[in-house]
């Protein structure tokens, strides 16, 4: 794991005191919204567009601690777990099979609300493949649930007035089904 990072280190711009950084894999330091400080491996951190842009755009030195005010420490732990695994498996032969196995395990331990929080974080950190994965997991969870369950889970408030809702129903009666009504 350290060798690719070392290669990356020699191509990417220098940061901090020259020379010493060439031997060790580079680390990027971030601080979460709840005040915890995390050291990320450069190759994992660069999977997150938000972090990548922050450092790359203005050539900011890796010594700067990047604030991630919208991310909680438990969320970052999960994100690091997923991205590290993804980077590890990326170039392997059984990539899809092993990733699927990891994804199944990853989702098992999480409640629907947790998944929702992570989708927010994935969007904020701009990690496309992680966002796709979390959204798919959420979709798979709610696809067999009724509309009221989804309302509660997402905490969505109904901003339709009675008239507006009735009008929507008449416009699309085929979408508002009633199980005990027969349609012929």
């Amino acid at each position, binding site marked *: 794991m350290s060798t690719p990072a070392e290669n990356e280190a020699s191509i990417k711009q220098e940061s901090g005191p020259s020379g010493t950084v060439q031997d060790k894999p580079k680390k990027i330091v971030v601080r979460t919204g709840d005040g915890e400080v995390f050291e990320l491996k450069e190759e994992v951190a660069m999977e997150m567009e938000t972090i990548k842009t922050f450092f790359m755009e203005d050539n900011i030195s890796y010594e700067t601690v990047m604030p991630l005010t919208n991310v909680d420490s438990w969320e970052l732990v999960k994100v690091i777990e997923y991205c590290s695994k993804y980077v590890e498996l990326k170039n392997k032969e059984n990539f899809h099979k092993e990733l699927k196995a990891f994804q199944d395990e990853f989702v098992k331990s999480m409640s629907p609300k947790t998944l929702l929080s992570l*989708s927010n974080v994935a969007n904020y950190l701009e990690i496309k493949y992680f966002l796709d994965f979390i959204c798919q997991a959420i979709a798979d969870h709610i*696809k*067999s649930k009724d509309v009221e369950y989804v309302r509660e889970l*997402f905490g969505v408030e109904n901003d339709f007035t009675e008239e507006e809702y009735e009008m929507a129903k008449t416009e699309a009666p*085929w*979408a508002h089904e009633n199980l005990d009504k027969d349609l012929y």
Partner: protein
Amino acid sequence: MAIGTMKSPHMPDLHNLPDLVTDKILQLLPTKAAFQVSFLSKNWQGVVSSWPSLNFDEDDDFDRHHLKRHSHYQLQLQHIRFIYFLKGYLDYRKKNDQKEPLDKLRLHMRMYEHQDFSTITKWLKYACQRGLKELDISLVSVDSERLVEIYPYNYFYNLPLVAIATAKSLTSLKLEFVKVLKLWQVYEGLFPSLKILSLKAVRVATGQHLYSVLCQCPSIESLSLSNCSIGNLKFYVCCSSLKYLEVKSCLLNDIRVDHAFNLESFTYLSQPYSECGKMILTNAFNLKYINISVDKYLGEFSLWGCHNTLEASIKSKRIHRFKLFYGYLNAKLSFKADQATILVGELWSQEQFSSDSTYVPRLVSFIKSFSRCKEVRLYNKKVQALTVFKNYRKMTSLPPLPVTSTLLVGIPNPPVVGSRDFIELEDSLRWIAPSAKVLIMQVDAEEDRK
């Protein structure tokens, strides 16, 4: 900090889940469920009339309403609602869309009925007018589930090609449980972008019809057939762009794959007690993988050209003619048959043979592939092509066909009995198959087909 099934202390305000995220989630739901969920609030309504990827799945719909598969009456009622939604959503889209492209349409039914024909056909036409790229339809009806052995083709959806003839951007077409019969009018330039074609439980009137459609697919790379029925049992493909060909559990008697310049993988697996008269592949110089299993009998297998890294697995009880030409001597062959006639077609010219010192070892290891055959017949025009010379036999002690009980050699002009050529050939054959009855016979010359 505890992570897992417990709620974490600092829950972000989920009311502010960005539109991008909720839109993404909605678009990953089966379309019927997504449309219903979109009524949660005004900003969830979003872009329901321009979702680029649609997924109408009756199985998901039944699960969503917790319907058990054995309660037939409830399933029928739900099917009516499903069709009602399909019709309504199509009209809704036609009315409200801004002609945005529709990339993917997936329509999987469990309770397809004849009355659904027009709704489905209208959807196909609409989707293709919106630049459809991927089409995946599976129209299982109650009856097709019950009679697995003999599909009731009468009840299948009869796909009208005209409905999808406008889909010039179609790259992937997957059809399951449909029939495509009206093929006598083939449209010019039907599917110019089609790369993937997958047919499962599809009925086609004749092989020529399928061939004429495939001719209109100049970019096709992957073709797979499974449990298909082709009326005259002929399968003919001539697509130089084809890379991957798979035929499983289809009743076919005559298979021909011509101009297989780019073909890399060929799989043919058939049911128990199956027979196949002819299987010919030509110009298959890139073919690296073969997997064939025809249970009872394979009449003729001809491979004209293959890649030098070819790995082939061939299995049948009896193979009447097994012919390989050009480059097969380097192939890794796994051959399982009780009885087979093998044509060693590599060397037709004397010059090639005398200058190639690696021929004999390669011939021996090639013959070894047939070690599990009880009866082996070798054929070649030239005696020398089948002779393993004494100096080589001395070097190796392992005969290639130790348990073969009959070894026949057929040559159009066999050497005269007692001549040096004859004795060398006989010694060579006895060495190749020490337990076998060895016979050298005159046979008619095999046509040199090219």
